[in-house]
């Protein structure tokens, strides 16, 4: 089966499978990443997010399937890879490097590198540039990655859980600078994260992966309101949700709280007239319900 490649596709993946021994990390994945949009790549640990990004950035070979980046195969393709920046959770640097060495070498890898912007970000994150990298805290290491990812201005930038150890203030700085700079220099960004509540409003497109398969691939706007929680007396709730797909069910005593799909205006009015309360479901809750995960699998943002 062949899929037509959309003209604004920066990445096109079809039938992509990756096995490690008997474990299937990605199972025949079809997905498109669109030019100049901020994408969220969401899912539980071990769902296949990092594997997918590694295959797209030619850090590993697929078992089956096809990957196209800017219309070409990325494997050993320097012309493609110099337009790609991949920021991962634990980047390794040469043993004897200081922070300033990272920023001195970055312009050689990224042709759009903005040294002034990097300087501003270094000040924003209060990064000590003379300090040896092995003496940095976890948060300072993450700050290096975030700064490289932003100042590289690569046409295709991946942030794979970029903020381990970054506190709430530093994460907000990252989101603010990302939005500002993206507005001035639109580019394709893929943000892989567990902190869904924090980034939900930044995303234009959401891809959710679970057990190696794509579970949601949708515009962020379309996902808002795609699920609703109905709360009220158990028998009234049960009657209302009777023939609907239930995403989640909770209850205490005679009360029930049931999450179902999208309700239209008439259905909402009917629910309110029946004395039920309706509450919206956040992207994070939606992902938790759809991936059948306990909420403990996702960090709760402050």
């Amino acid at each position, binding site marked *: 089966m062949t899929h037509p490649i959309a003209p604004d596709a920066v990445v096109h993946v079809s039938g992509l499978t990756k096995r490690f021994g008997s474990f299937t990390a990605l199972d025949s994945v079809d997905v498109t990443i669109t030019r100049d*949009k*901020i994408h969220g790549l969401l899912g539980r640990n071990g769902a296949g997010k990092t594997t997918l990004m590694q295959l797209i950035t030619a850090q590993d070979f697929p078992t089956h399937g096809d990957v196209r980046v800017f219309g070409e195969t990325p494997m050993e393709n320097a012309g493609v890879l110099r337009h790609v920046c991949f920021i991962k959770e634990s980047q390794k640097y040469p043993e004897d490097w200081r922070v300033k060495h990272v920023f001195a070498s970055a312009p050689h890898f990224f042709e759009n590198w903005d040294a002034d912007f990097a300087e501003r970000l270094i000040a924003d994150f209060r990064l000590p540039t003379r300090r040896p990298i092995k003496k940095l805290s976890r948060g300072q290491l993450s700050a290096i990655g975030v700064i490289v990812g932003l100042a590289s201005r690569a046409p295709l930038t991946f942030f794979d859980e970029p903020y381990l150890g970054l506190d709430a203030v530093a994460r907000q700085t990252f*989101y*603010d600078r990302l*939005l*500002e700079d*993206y*507005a*001035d220099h639109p580019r394709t960004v893929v943000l892989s994260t567990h902190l869904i509540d924090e980034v939900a*409003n*930044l*995303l*234009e497109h959401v891809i959710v992966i679970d057990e190696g398969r794509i579970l949601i691939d949708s515009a*962020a*706007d379309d996902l*808002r*309101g795609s699920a*609703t929680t109905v709360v009220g007396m158990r028998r009234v709730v049960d009657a209302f949700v009777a023939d609907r797909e239930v995403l989640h069910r909770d209850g205490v005593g005679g009360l029930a709280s049931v999450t179902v799909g999208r309700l239209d205006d008439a259905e909402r009015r009917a629910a*309110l*007239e029946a*004395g039920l309360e309706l*509450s*919206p*479901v*956040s992207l994070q809750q939606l992902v938790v319900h759809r991936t059948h995960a306990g909420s403990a699998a996702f960090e709760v943002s402050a």
Partner: protein
Amino acid sequence: MIEEGKPIFVQIAEQIENDVIDGAIEEETQVPSTNEFAAFYRINPATAGKGVNRLVEDGTLYKKRGIGMFVAAGARERLLAKRRGEFRAEYLEPLLAEAAKLSITTDQLTDMIRTEGTQP
């Protein structure tokens, strides 16, 4: 500021409408740019743009080439008329439903509104 359950671009459009209705942005003056809205509300610029475009399409805003977006003449009156039309469904019906649930009669409700309405 941004709430769940409602598309963000709709909320951005409503926020600008509110600013026009209460006079925070006057007719024939410039509204902030899409990127300024995006930075202020911490939302995706494309989403902010969608909210602004919605108001361009219904004639609340208009575009001056190379300068930006401006509030159209007469926009405030048109928005007031639209919101008055929505008032019944948005406010009156839920009010009456809640009043019925609590066995508040229409007369009692009318009295409450009169009393509240005369508060300074």
